[in-house]
């Protein structure tokens, strides 16, 4: 009994220490944001690494998710004799939820884990120490460009995911199941609102990007500098970032859509 309480106390202390360390990490990063934006070449390289290299998985996943949404939507809506609404349903579920959320989950697995591993290995091979000895702040040179690159890349990836998802839904419902093409688009056009849906979906993607970037780089910077430590940190990035995305999505949805 005492043991259980003690271990509860220990783990909550560790949690608090972790939160404090994370807050300190963010506090160190904030003043570097303006300078980070001007290091264009570093930034472009990182946007390529995080964004462009994530394109194949985002494109494929977007298409398939859209196609499945089309199939399921058509199947359900047919029982209410309103197959034409399938366009609206596909578009709204993608723009409001599935686009930002699924793109963020894939991004956490594809780019977040890579960032943690890269930064963790840079630290374990003394590259951070070497930078400090050359009077270059690793937070400025390594961490900041990667954070900004995530924030630039993920919203764009989410948009691409949504566009391909809608295309996938269109191909399946109009091309295969025979829904009227005009109805598909005009219903979607009437029912998707620029501000309430598109902007809110975009805001979600930005918030998720900040979360994933911070988790991935925090884990990389504080990983125990051994192969085992880095591999554990990589796993933690994927788990924490994915759960964080889902949790935040619930909070954001409850603020935006109620």
């Amino acid at each position: 009994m005492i043991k259980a309480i003690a271990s509860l106390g220990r783990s909550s202390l560790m949690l608090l220490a972790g939160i404090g360390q994370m807050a300190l990490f963010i506090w160190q990063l904030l003043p570097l944001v303006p300078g980070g934006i001007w290091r264009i070449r570093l930034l472009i390289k990182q946007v390529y690494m995080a964004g462009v290299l994530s394109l194949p998985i985002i494109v494929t996943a977007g298409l398939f998710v859209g196609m499945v949404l089309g199939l399921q939507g058509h199947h359900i809506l047919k029982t209410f004799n309103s197959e034409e609404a399938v366009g609206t349903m596909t578009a709204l579920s993608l723009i409001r939820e599935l686009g930002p959320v699924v793109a963020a989950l894939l991004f956490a697995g594809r780019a977040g884990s890579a960032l943690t591993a890269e930064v963790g290995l840079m630290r374990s091979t003394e590259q951070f120490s070497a930078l400090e000895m050359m009077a270059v702040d690793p937070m400025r040179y390594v961490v900041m460009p990667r954070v900004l690159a995530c924030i630039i890349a993920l919203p764009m990836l989410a948009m691409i995911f949504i566009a391909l998802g809608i295309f996938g839904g269109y191909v399946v419902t109009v091309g295969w199941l025979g829904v009227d093409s005009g109805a598909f688009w005009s219903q979607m056009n009437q029912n998707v609102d620029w501000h309430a849906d598109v902007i809110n979906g975009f805001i979600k993607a930005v918030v998720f990007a900040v979360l994933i970037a911070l988790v991935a780089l925090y884990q990389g910077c504080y990983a125990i500098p051994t192969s085992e430590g880095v591999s554990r940190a990589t796993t933690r990035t994927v788990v924490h970032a994915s759960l964080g995305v889902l949790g935040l999505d619930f909070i954001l949805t409850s603020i935006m859509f109620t």
Partner: protein
Amino acid sequence: MSTPIIEVINLSFSRGTRKIFHQLSFRVYPGKITAIMGPSGTGKTTLLKLMVGQLKPDHGQVLFYGQDIQTLSRSQLYRLRQKMGMLFQSGALLTDLSVYENVAFPLHEHFSNLAPGLIEKLVEMKLEAVGLRGAKQLMPAELSGGMSRRVALARAIILDPEVIFYDEPFVGQDPITMGVLIKLIKSLNDQLHLTSVLVSHDVDEVLSIADHACVLSEGRIIAEGSPAELKASDSEYVQQFLQGRADGPVPFHYPVEPWSVSND
């Protein structure tokens, strides 16, 4: 003698419960090669990190030009480090940059207004000095351990530092390269009037170029002096270390309980 450029005063440092240094003091004089020797695991790398302010001592001070580096602000410390070069034991090259970009990196970061042609000349000069001008397009992953250490050396001297720290520069080098490196360290020191701090356990090589050498054991300096003085020392510790004998007063083992075969 002139005023010391670096002074380590009563330095103590522990890792967890293990005391690595206890009341360590020594001085580094300008224009000289100061060697710190000691068995593996005595904390030579740790000592270098304490000297450049990457680790904080528990007690004691490190003075650079008479100023305690612990009292410096981050930007003052960074300004001081532009006058230092450090060769890491592992090389520590940036793995996403080529050999050329690695050596040019400090120039690009601190003197970005230099003409590109000039940067290229400077980089080629330093790479030539370590015998790797032909390797400038390679990536760090394509280099051997010895080669990456030489690239790291070229990078450490690119800004023409006033003080340079070498962590085990000779490990993993073939005899020819070793000879070249010894000459290079000596000539950098003498021609550019650098101050060198050299950490190593390659006794013969080190003693051949050092002006002053300290022998480190169990957290303190057990002997120091010129190479000739050390060789003539009658201390058993020093003789054991210089001759590389396993038995003697210097422990070869990491501290443990005595090892005994129980027979109960």
